């Protein structure tokens, strides 16, 4: 076994065997799956969880008598002008009603103001339900007043669905789903960003540990500093890959099992509470079939192989580039506090590329985005945002060539700093000294 693989093995095993790694690796997917399942659970159960509300309606205009639909949750009770608002308010405090809706008579005879009195916070769904009902009713009345049959208006209302079709070549056309691509891009770019920082930091901490332990001199009397640095960087890269693959496998397993148990029966039962009861069963069926078809189309439209390949390349080389820099930083300082000054400068470009995420997606052809895609310090994140939308091959190629060659160059420079830095104790080096180390 050569030295590099001995070092790599140690760096890998000591980290993988750590309790914190095992806990994070096992808990991660559970939390991740919970994050994925929780919203749908909440959506299903929100109706059940909401307490029933009784609302008194005092409508001085008497336009809305019986117009507010009673739902599972909300019951509306109507009063006429003979009742005074103050006595109704009192009923709220007595607990008879949860709220009073007061629609006063206005001078213009068009009731556009209403007041909802309650002694507790009114759910947003209730106030929006009232607003929509009133709006519809007034519009309806106005249409009638102008001599237009509201049913005609209803019949001319159309749902427009614009499918965006990207022509990759003259013969190949693809329907694109920008929202999905946006989410995938953002998610993967976020993963790259976070992983680069967390694990480059681990590289740095490892270097500082060897320095403060004073084991460094023993080791570099046996191996070349470059071997030690690369063994550490590659060993931690394997840790990352291990963790991410376990996460992916576990969380998808948990997701499928859990969604089968929790969501399955709800979705499958036709009388389920998922769909509102107003929609007839038939339209429900055809609608869900449409959604299914759409989903299949969406998934098929995504170029997974490009995304996965792109992710792997940009993730690996982005990590290697930053890890080499962080290793050099670690070698220059004696403790983590001293490293902050250097890290804040190094992390700026990567942050910039994430800040520019929306520009990148909305304006992929701008020169800013082209620069961000080419500069090796920003390209991993920027390119990951763009790849789901499709990026010209020459740009991907050029950006990868630049990234890989700067990885080589940066590692070479980092190794020079590292070689000198690891044997320097005591004070934090100045920029001038670092420049000198580079030329030794």
């Amino acid at each position: 076994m050569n030295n590099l693989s001995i070092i790599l093995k140690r760096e890998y095993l000591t980290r993988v065997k750590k309790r914190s790694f095992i806990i994070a690796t096992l808990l991660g997917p559970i939390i991740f799956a919970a994050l994925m399942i929780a919203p749908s659970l909440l959506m299903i159960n929100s109706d059940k969880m909401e307490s029933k509300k009784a609302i008194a309606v005092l409508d001085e205009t008497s336009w809305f008598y019986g117009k507010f639909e009673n739902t599972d949750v909300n019951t509306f009770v109507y009063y006429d002008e003979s009742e005074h608002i103050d006595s109704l308010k009192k009923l709220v405090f007595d607990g008879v009603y949860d709220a009073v809706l007061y629609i006063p008579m206005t001078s213009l005879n068009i009731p556009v103001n209403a007041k909802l009195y309650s002694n507790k916070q009114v759910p947003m769904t209730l106030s929006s339900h009232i607003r929509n009902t009133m709006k519809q009713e007034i519009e309806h009345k106005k249409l009638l007043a102008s001599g237009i049959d509201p049913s005609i208006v209803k019949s001319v209302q159309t749902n427009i669905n614009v499918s965006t079709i990207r022509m990759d070549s003259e013969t190949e056309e693809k329907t694109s789903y920008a929202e999905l691509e946006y989410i995938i891009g953002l998610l993967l770019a976020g993963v790259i960003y976070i992983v680069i920082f967390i694990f480059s930091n681990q590289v740095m901490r490892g270097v500082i540990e060897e320095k403060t332990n004073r084991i460094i001199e023993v080791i570099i009397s046996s191996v070349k500093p470059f071997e030690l640095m690369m063994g550490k960087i590659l060993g931690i890269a394997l840790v990352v890959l291990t963790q991410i693959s376990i996460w992916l496998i576990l969380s998808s397993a948990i997701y499928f099992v859990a969604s089968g148990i929790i969501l399955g029966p709800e979705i499958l039962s036709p009388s389920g509470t998922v769909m509102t009861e107003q929609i007839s069963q038939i339209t429900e069926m055809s609608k869900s079939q449409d959604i299914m078809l759409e989903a299949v189309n969406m998934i098929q439209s995504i170029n997974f192989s490009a995304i996965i390949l792109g992710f792997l390349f940009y993730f690996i080389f982005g990590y290697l580039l930053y890890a080499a820099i962080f290793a050099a930083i670690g070698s220059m300082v004696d403790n983590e506090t001293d490293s902050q000054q250097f890290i804040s400068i190094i992390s700026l470009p990567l942050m910039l590329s994430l800040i520019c995420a929306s520009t990148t997606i909305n304006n992929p052809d701008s020169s800013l985005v082209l620069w961000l895609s080419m500069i090796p310090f920003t390209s991993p994140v920027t390119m990951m945002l763009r790849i789901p939308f499709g990026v010209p091959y020459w740009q991907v190629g050029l950006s990868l060539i630049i990234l890989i060659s700067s990885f080589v160059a940066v590692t070479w420079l980092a190794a020079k700093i590292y070689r000198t830095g690891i044997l320097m104790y005591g004070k934090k080096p100045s920029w001038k000294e670092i420049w000198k180390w580079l030329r030794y």
Partner: protein
Amino acid sequence: MNNFIEIKNVSKTYGNYKALDNISISIPRQSIYGLLGPNGAGKTTLIRMLNQITAPDEGSIIFNGATLNRNHISQIGYLPEERGLYKSMKVGEQAIYLAQLKGVSQKDAEKRLKSWFNKFGILNWWDRKVEELSKGMQQKIQFIVTVIHNPQLLIFDEPFSGFDPINVNILKNEILELRDKGATIIFSTHNMASVEELCDNIMLINKGKKILEGSVYQIKQDNKDNKFEVKLRNSGIQEFRDSGHWVLPDGFSIISADDKDVNSETTLVISAEKEINPNILINHLSEKGTIVSYRELLPSMNDIFINKVNSL
């Protein structure tokens, strides 16, 4: 070829700072060689060159007849002054790792380590984490790791710092044993007592320059100032005093006389001119009383060290 290491005209400059200036030394095979000098003298630079952590700007280093190269790494054992271990790693695991880096196979490493651990009576530490051990315990493990690959050249930089006297003794014996088994040992220290005890040859280095080199015996002979200490019984010292001066043969003069000894012995320290046979003194004094002891006062390495460094 009787010299195991030949350092020829080696220089090293860091920026404007000359860490080593034209240093040449020869280290005989199977001997203990002391590298002495104040802090910042260039000892560590020289040691790092032997370990190929740094390379000389000029000059060459011959290792066992061949120019020093990466293949020699596995034949060198190095215990640096700044030494440590991975805190959260288990002792045995870590020792195997460090042995593997020196080219010992995992199986051999385990076997050899167990026998060393056994010898030091620390086999029960094998599965403990380093952070649970005291500093002295860690030093023992560092020592074992330094010698585990049976290196032909051993370099110890301040090996005794941090050890208690009992462990210092154990370590000294181990070092002597390693030499007797054939290893050549370089030994860098400020501890002059251990130099006199262990080293066959030394070099004194200051500010990158070689000041002194040779065998410990020869250096002492070269630096002695011809002083003798004689103890007399029934010396009749009063008689010397009464005459107003010390009566000694030509070429000898008294430095001090002390007769306050409870056993009524008088201790005389006498300096002699060079090239005078001290037997003349003994003959002279034997008439004055009974000579209890006689010895030549040789300067200690400590005195030579301080003298040489200060006189520069």
